[in-house]
């Protein structure tokens, strides 16, 4: 297989990953690394480099669309970006210091966690929480649009959210993923931010987090142009198509199927990491 054929295969696979990722809301980045390493035998470091580049493209593109809808909270996003960018630098520094087999095993663990989280029903509690002094001081409280007009919300537990965001950033820099699942967990579960605000604000933050990791990867020679090119263009086009299709599609069965795929990839990554094949 020459570079031309390989590029076409990788482009098409990335297109499918981006499409399914957008359609299921699980993100395409999380399957790119297993796809490149397990199917094409690409070295883990080149794979996480190409993956992280595609993460910047899709999240920035989607954030632009979400911002118009008025759910994203830019103050929450920008404050928590302190934690995610610091984490991303730590994660990227770690990536150079631990073996690729260890990275593969951690990656597999995160895939299993993502599969589990995607199987959980999303929380729909309506709570009227009192304002939190720290969140008020940081001007995080806002409202989001709903059918009955703007609904105000009060952000809770800023330190806990900040800590979880640091972990999300570390995973992003270590594994070349957006780690949107952990970001949403931090905002939705810990900080009690409404779900739609959490997902769109998480997306808003992913680009900056990934850019911090990608800068380090670039300097370290992890970003190969020949590999990053089809991955970035494939995932980007796939996710745009997926978002268009989303309005008409029934995503419940797709979520289950994609969740199973992620679970199987997670087991494969752990197995190959433990047996030293990656």
């Amino acid at each position: 297989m020459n570079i031309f054929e390989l590029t076409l295969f990788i482009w098409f696979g990335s297109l499918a990953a981006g499409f399914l990722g957008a359609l299921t809301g699980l993100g395409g980045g999380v399957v790119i690394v297993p796809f490149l390493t397990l199917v094409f035998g690409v070295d883990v470091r080149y794979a996480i480099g190409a993956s992280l580049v595609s993460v910047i493209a899709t999240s920035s593109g989607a954030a632009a669309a979400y911002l118009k809808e008025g759910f994203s909270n830019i103050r929450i996003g920008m404050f928590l970006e302190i934690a995610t960018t610091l984490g991303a630098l730590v994660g990227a520094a770690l990536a150079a210091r631990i073996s690729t087999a260890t990275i593969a095993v951690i990656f597999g663990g995160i895939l299993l966690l993502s599969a589990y989280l995607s199987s959980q029903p999303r929380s729909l509690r309506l709570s009227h929480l009192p304002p939190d002094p720290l969140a008020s001081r940081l001007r995080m409280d806002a409202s989001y649009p709903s059918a009955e007009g703007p609904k105000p919300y009060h952000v809770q537990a800023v330190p806990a959210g900040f800590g979880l965001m640091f972990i999300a950033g570390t995973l992003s820099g270590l594994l070349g993923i957006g780690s949107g699942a952990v970001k949403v967990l931090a905002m939705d579960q810990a900080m009690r931010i409404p779900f739609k605000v959490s997902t769109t604000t998480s997306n808003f933050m992913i680009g900056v987090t990934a850019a911090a990791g990608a800068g380090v990867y670039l300097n370290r020679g992890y970003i190969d142009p020949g590999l990053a090119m089809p991955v970035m263009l494939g995932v980007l086009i796939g996710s745009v198509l997926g978002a268009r299709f989303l309005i008409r599609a029934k995503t419940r069965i797709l979520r289950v199927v994609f969740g199973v795929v992620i679970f199987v990839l997670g087991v494969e990554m752990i197995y190959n990491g433990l047996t030293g094949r990656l």
Partner: protein
Amino acid sequence: MQKSRVPLTDERLVQIIGTLLRVGVLLAAGVVLLGGIFYLGQSGSTLPRYQAFRGEPADLRSVSGIIRDLFSFRAAALIQFGILLLIATPIARVLFSLFAFFREGDAIYVLVTLFVSCLLIFSLVGGGI
């Protein structure tokens, strides 16, 4: 021709950031696509070598190296330049927010965005910590 200063509300800030992100991603994707077409023309028939990690050559690892290689018309450098534009897009977003918060006189968020800007610039020129 003094322009009247349009007050920079949070809503307007969100609009401008949205446009900035969209233009940045489209521009980066266009440059990567162009570079990709040249790249496949130049080395499409050679064999890939991604199984073993060697790391990119030094000139494709740094901002200055990539820009220097652009002028010698290397397709790989053009793709790498597109990727640089992509990395620069969120950085530009943070820098613009810094400016906007400064104009709003929001001291806390000036510090927040200033700190994040420094981390991002450090990651790009810090030599791969």
